[in-house]
């Protein structure tokens, strides 16, 4: 039976991680496109041209996000039917809200944004671009709320049969866990959006193409990327870490690689967890920093993993530890890179410094890696719980499906997603190579004629 559970978990982890590569880009780009449209509204044709170009990439990415999102909703029922049976009336609230309040909004206004430039007034088109931000960001909120209930359940009671009932919809929607996690996740998404924009901008500048428009949107991307990189670390990253420490102390100790209770605990920067000897191999540690970051006091006591019952340890501490350190390490690099770009922007050297443009261009994959690692940290860290402290993961999975069936669908998803990746890279590369063009509004003619 344990192997079926593993297959259920791998399938959900695979489809969810793959899916999230797309919305993190679209949620970030939606905001950037709105900023460009706002600049365009004040009479800057370059911003309208840049918005049009980025909207093409947005459209393709959004499509991938839509199609890879459908399986997730189905999998609640197909793979996690016991979870749905006992908590569906709660999780269904936020999932149904996402459909009704966010998806309908997105599907309607994306079409109007892509094809409405000729038909709508400038202001109306700008409002539509705002509605798209509202739709994609709302969608994110409802999903984080659904996840937050699993991480930090609120507003429920459990009856004699073990079924969860909603006692307060307001508590569910204003779950303090959700609010902090949302702010951190959305900042991560803005980082992805701005790094992608900066990276492709850098590519065009290095090739010496589309210089006028690219230089300008690149500076927008760098400013937004700098601000978002800082917010991701403090305050939102700090809030999130403190909240994990408070409510999920086992996850916290495991992700920090902190095995033994200590006063004035050090922060592990690099090193490999050694579970046989319960220590970090080859560590580089900042003394007392973990105590300070967690409790604002250099000598505070931080509990180690060994304080907790071994059954409650996450089942893959190594992966959890590395996911967290990859996320945090990349986050630090993002601040450094964008900080440097800001400095060069200020000195008016950003567009001509080929070294920094190369770095920006090559940075493209890293925000995606950081965000994925962040999700791994959250989800692997929650194990062995499906609903933290209340329901074990083994108890939430469908029990009536044989391993062979799950393996079949898992392989199917892998094959299909490989095919989607090839298509996406091929088509995105084409759009990128065409680059932005300055057109009058009458000529505005998107490459895609179909709305998504």
């Amino acid at each position, binding site marked *: 039976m344990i192997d079926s559970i593993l297959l259920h978990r791998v399938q959900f982890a695979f489809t969810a991680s793959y899916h999230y590569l797309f919305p993190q880009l679209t949620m970030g780009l939606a905001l950037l496109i709105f900023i460009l449209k706002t600049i365009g509204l004040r009479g800057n044709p370059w911003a309208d041209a840049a918005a049009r170009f980025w909207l093409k990439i947005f459209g*393709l990415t959004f*499509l991938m996000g*839509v*199609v890879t999102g*459908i*399986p997730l*909703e*189905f999998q*609640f*029922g*197909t793979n996690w*039917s*016991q979870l*749905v*049976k*006992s*908590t*569906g*009336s709660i*999780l*269904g*609230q936020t*999932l*149904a*809200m*996402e*459909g*009704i*309040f966010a*998806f*309908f*909004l997105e*599907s*309607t*206004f*994306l*079409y*109007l944004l892509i*094809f*409405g430039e000729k*038909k709508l007034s400038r202001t109306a088109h700008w409002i539509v671009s705002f509605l798209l931000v509202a739709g994609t960001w709302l969608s994110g909120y409802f999903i984080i709320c659904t996840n937050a209930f699993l991480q930090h359940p609120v507003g429920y009671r459990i009856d004699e049969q073990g079924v969860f*009932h*909603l006692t307060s*919809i307001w508590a569910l929607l204003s779950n303090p866990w959700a609010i902090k996690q949302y702010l951190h996740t959305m900042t991560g998404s803005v980082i992805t959006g701005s790094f992608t924009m900066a990276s492709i901008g850098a590519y065009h500048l290095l090739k010496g193409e589309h210089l006028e428009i690219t230089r300008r949107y690149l500076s927008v991307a760098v400013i937004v990327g700098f601000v978002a990189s800082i917010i991701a670390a403090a305050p939102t990253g700090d809030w999130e870490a403190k909240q994990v420490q408070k409510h999920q102390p086992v996850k916290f100790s495991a992700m920090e690689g902190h095995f033994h209770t200590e006063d004035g605990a050090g922060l592990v920067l690099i090193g490999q967890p050694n579970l046989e000897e319960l220590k970090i191999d080859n560590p580089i540690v900042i003394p007392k920093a973990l105590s300070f970051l967690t409790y604002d006091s250099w000598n505070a006591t931080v509990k180690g993993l060994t304080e907790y019952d071994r059954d409650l340890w996450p089942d893959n501490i190594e992966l959890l530890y590395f996911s967290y350190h990859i996320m945090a390490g990349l986050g630090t690099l993002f601040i450094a890179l964008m900080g440097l770009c800001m400095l060069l922007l200020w000195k008016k050297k950003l567009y001509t410094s080929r070294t920094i443009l190369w770095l920006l261009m090559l940075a493209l994959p890293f925000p995606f890696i950081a965000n994925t690692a962040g999700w791994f940290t959250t989800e692997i860290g929650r194990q062995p719980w499906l609903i933290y402290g209340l329901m074990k993961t083994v108890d939430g999975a*469908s*029990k*009536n499906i044989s391993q062979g069936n799950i393996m079949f*669908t898992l392989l*199917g998803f892998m094959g*299909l997603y490989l095919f*989607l990746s090839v*298509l996406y890279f091929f*088509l995105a590369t*084409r759009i990128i190579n065409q680059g932005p063009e300055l057109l009058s509004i009458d000529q505005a003619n998107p*490459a*895609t*004629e*179909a*709305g*998504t």
Partner: protein
Amino acid sequence: MMETVWYILLLLMISTYLVLDGFDLGIGVLHLFLADNRPEQKQIIQSIAPVWDGNEVWLIAAGGTMMMAFPVFLSALFSGFYLPLTMVVWLLIFRAISIELPHYLSDSLWVHFWNIMLFVSSSLLIVILGAAMANVFRGVPLDQTGTFFEPLWTDFRIGTQTGILDWYTILSGMTSAVILLHHGALWLIAKTDGAVQQRSRRVASWLWDLTTGLTALTLLASYSVQPLAKASYASHPWILALPVGAILALIGSFLFRIKHHNMAAFLSSALFIYLVIFSGAAALYPNMLPSLNPEFSLTIYNASPPANELNTALFWWIPGIVLVGIYFTILFRSLPKTISTTASEEH
């Protein structure tokens, strides 16, 4: 009482999905036969391109609503139909990209490939939708744990050993296919002009004959495979208004079409789909998923949470759906009244 309210709301969402995505699914199949050249092909696809995504959201929103209002039902249904539902997901993915991706490249092989994919995924989906509903209607081998797992097929007969595909579910799949093809053809008649409109009109004419014949056959079959249907219609004869209304709506779609009231014909077909779904649901009520052993059947009462939870949900659901109505009005009004081959070139 609250259970019944939510059951009706859920049925409304599912049938709205079938009515809206129904026409673009039907057109996904028909487009290969109704267009002679690339501009006509574009004209047909242009009639659904702006709306298919929003139409499909009804399925997702209905899924969320089902999870919220009838979690036990969703849990049994989705895990029991594990394989076919996962395949439905794959088909939905293929269909979505088949509609959107052709426009990124004008290479004729590329376009042709996606057109074939659109045809294949849409055809399989419309057959599966009907077969799925027939499975629910016929009943499944739910046991005392409230779960079941059916093989894809057994010997195609209906007995104690049911398979997902048997003669009844295949018949229903075929029926739903012709209903949705007819529905799609009526949308094309209403939204296009020229050669495409004329061909759609011809196709709609014989699709109407097929729809009428197969619907009659499926009605008789349904009445015979599900004893609950006899009991319901015998004890509450007034629900006969639903199937009778469905027949009138079907006749209406014929009359409006031959009189060239094209939009009215399409709306009649939409009403027909709504009433077919409600006729089936009324026959089972208050059962949602009948078991072959009636003791274990899921009803709207044992599949839903307590009424106060359902009550809470109405407070956000009603304003939510009003908003959705506004979006759809904006979206459908922003479409051109008639899509002609020249207009589709502009885009």
